[in-house]
């Protein structure tokens, strides 16, 4: 299997060019000559983990304002350089990081690199632009009050993680917190949190790797930030000790969205692969796994019903989501948890296990077909410290998962009588 995967040209330590600049910026480049374009993605510190609950949204506003003005260019000049050549680039803050990324025709890679460098090194946060952005975000937040999926997810998150945990909060901020955030605070946040330490950049496309590294070096190696605050991580999160039901009534809705879940594994947890396979059997493989089969196919209760494991840099959620008629909410929840109980009590079958291993290994060519797919995989290998030969070793890791491991993963994370159930939808439901 290993030899076959190498033969397929999987990204690995021998064909990824990796360089660490003198200021700590890490650059990884993989040539993909079969396309005309190039993708640049990456991440750096400055997520909502670095803001206070009182100023929820500060990290997100800072990241989103980077392209609204630098020392040498205004918003229109920054946008024009990209849009005039059909390129795209943006920044967005999550909890742990600010992610950035964009694409262009391959000959325009220098514009992407220059945009990244100029916006992270020389932003000026014009107060009129910050005010405008705040208004746009608040309009979006107002609109999302009507979005049953978003409201169910918000209620789920707020109930699963207590107010002392960063995952309790959405990086976007709230209608209450955003008015208290101004341009001066963005400047201070940028000055204290942004810097080259912790920056990872991945470039994939029709480019020469050595030239691409040189181009990044020329623009970003001069970046220094002696006052950059040290990296933070999130603490562990305790699961709820009893089932918590949360209901968000929204008038005028004909469907309800439901999220059921618990605190799940981190990406680097030793049982992560077993948990991923457990999740796939529960609510992904085939037509949304066992839950899809019971809730959608057999009972016809939902248009969608699936499970998802976040598995990021901290204790993200492991959840089941469904869109159902308000009258069917309770039944959908019961059927879903019944499947969790079964998986905690009994081994999955050999066929299920083999099918899912084959699924995880077999879809690699499809996932790695595009520049975006390749770049995302390389970024994960680097930032989760999986090693650049992770994809070569991946089939062996997947094949090592056992039925015991799958059941243990369910037992470790799920207590079906202590979960959060969040429902958003028709105002008259119970």
């Amino acid at each position: 299997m290993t030899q076959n995967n190498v033969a397929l040209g999987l990204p690995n330590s021998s064909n990824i060019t990796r360089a660490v600049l003198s200021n700590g910026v890490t650059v990884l480049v993989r040539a993909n000559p079969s396309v005309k374009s190039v993708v640049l993605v990456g991440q750096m510190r400055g997520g909502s983990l670095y803001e206070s609950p009182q100023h929820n949204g500060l990290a997100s506003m800072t990241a989103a304002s980077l392209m609204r003005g630098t020392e040498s260019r205004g918003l229109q000049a920054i946008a024009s350089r990209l849009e005039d050549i059909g390129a795209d680039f943006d920044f967005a803050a999550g909890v742990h990081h600010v992610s950035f990324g964009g694409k262009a025709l391959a000959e325009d890679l220098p514009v992407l690199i220059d945009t990244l460098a100029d916006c992270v090194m020389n932003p000026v946060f014009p107060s009129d632009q910050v005010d405008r952005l705040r208004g746009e975000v608040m309009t979006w937040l107002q609109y999302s009050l009507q979005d049953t999926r978003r409201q169910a997810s918000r209620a789920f998150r707020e109930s699963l993680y207590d107010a002392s945990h960063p995952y309790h909060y959405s990086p976007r901020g709230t209608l209450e917190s955003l008015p208290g955030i101004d341009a001066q605070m963005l400047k201070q946040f940028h000055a204290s949190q942004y810097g080259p330490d912790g920056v990872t950049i991945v470039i994939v496309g029709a480019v020469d790797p050595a030239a691409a590294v040189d181009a990044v070096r020329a623009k970003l190696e001069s970046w220094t930030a002696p006052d950059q605050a040290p990296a933070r991580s999130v603490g562990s999160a305790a699961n709820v000790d009893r089932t918590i039901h949360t209901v968000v009534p929204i008038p005028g809705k004909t469907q309800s969205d439901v999220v059921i879940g618990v605190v799940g594994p981190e990406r680097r947890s030793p049982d992560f692969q077993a948990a991923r396979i457990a999740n796939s059997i529960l609510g992904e493989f085939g037509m949304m796994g066992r839950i899809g089969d019971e809730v959608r196919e057999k009972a016809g209760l939902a248009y969608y019903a699936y499970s998802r494991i976040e598995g990021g840099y901290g204790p993200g959620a492991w959840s089941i989501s469904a869109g159902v008629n308000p009258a069917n909410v309770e039944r959908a929840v019961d059927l879903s948890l019944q499947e969790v109980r079964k998986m905690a009590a009994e081994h999955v079958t050999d066929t299920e296990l083999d099918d899912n291993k084959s699924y995880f290994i077999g879809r690699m060519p499809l996932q790695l077909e595009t520049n975006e797919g390749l770049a995302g995989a390389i970024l994960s290998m680097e930032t989760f410290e999986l090693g650049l030969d992770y994809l070569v070793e991946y089939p062996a890791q997947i094949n090592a998962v056992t039925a015991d491991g799958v059941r243990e993963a369910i037992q470790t994370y799920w207590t079906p009588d202590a979960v959060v159930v969040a429902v958003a939808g028709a105002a008259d439901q119970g």
Partner: protein
Amino acid sequence: MAVQRHVLENGLVVILKEVQSAPLISWWVLYRIGSRNEPTGKTGISHWVEHMMFKGTEAFPAKEVDKMFDRLGGTWNAQTSFDYTAYYETLPADKIDLALRHEADRMVNARFDIEEVESERTVIISERQGLENSPLFWLDEEISAAAFRVHGYHHEIVGDLHDLRTMTRDDLYSHYRRYYVPNNAIVVAVGAFDPDDMLSRIRQHFGAIPAGDTPPLFVRPEPEQQGERRVTVERPGHTAFLEYAYRAPAAGDDDFYALTILDSILTGPDGQIDNKTSRLYRALVETEIAASIGGGLVPTVDPYLYTIVVTLRDGRTIAEAEVIIESEIARLVAGDVSQAEVDKAKKQARASFAYTTETVTGQGYWLAFAENLGSYGWFEGYIDRLDHVSLDDVKAAAIRYLRPRNRVVGHLIPTGLVDGANDEDDDDAE
């Protein structure tokens, strides 16, 4: 490699394109039947039949098919549009025979069990209710209904609730038997194969399926509009929307390309590239009247709509936005367009086209889509035809299409929220 087109004796159109960039093949089967061909009382039937095609045959039981493709690391899905119903599988190249066998089988042997039809009725109604949760769905539905009094584009693809409640198994099965015949289908393969070998495999699986009667297509041309039409929708929420929908040319019309460039100038290129330098962004978002703006021109068999959607900022009025749009439209109609703007739109289209066609799945989709419009050459020649649009063509298109009597204007009026649903403190009631 060059695209090949063949027609089998039973009328099946076969399009082949060899692409050796990844060990994958994307396989598409498109039937020339969509929501535009549905009479009143049967709205949504194409989409529902698409769902039933996932319910299995004797040879390929439903639960097994999902697992079969996942096991191979493939992806498969379907889509119903105004003008077609299409199915695809993208698989590792050495497994593609399975996709051919599966599609040949379900072209003839789909079961349409009565129990499955009834179970799916709930799922389809749930899908419609999920769409109804978005206020913009209601506005779009009203605008289509106002724009198309006669033509089948007047109803949503998902169908009207009454029809979803009343259609029978026999209705669905008749639709399937009538339209799912080789002489009403286009098949496309794109990927790592030898074209001669692929053609012989297609003959082997599809050649023996008998042609059906030429299916009657229900099409009623829309009479010319006699004056501006306006619709208003009131829904719970805080966010107001304004939508302009101008009658637009069919995809095969030369004017379609001129209008594509006009759209790029007015609202920006397609969703893969940002639109901050577009005229309406500058006129509406930079003036803080709108939180966002967007435009859309869908390539369709019959003349459809060119839409402009404005999301109003809290506290700003639809009337303010209308004044701005009228003034920007007037500029275009008066000929205030530059060659530089036209050139920029062309470069954006070239980049966007490159991004879209970097996957075998994307190429398969566009070849099938284009053949349904009249010829796969529509896709192959898209960039060339855009390049041939002159500044005068763009000015002429503005005069021809952007007239008040040629449009429907829609307002979505938010009626606020009741029951304290926007009060975050009320969300956590257990």
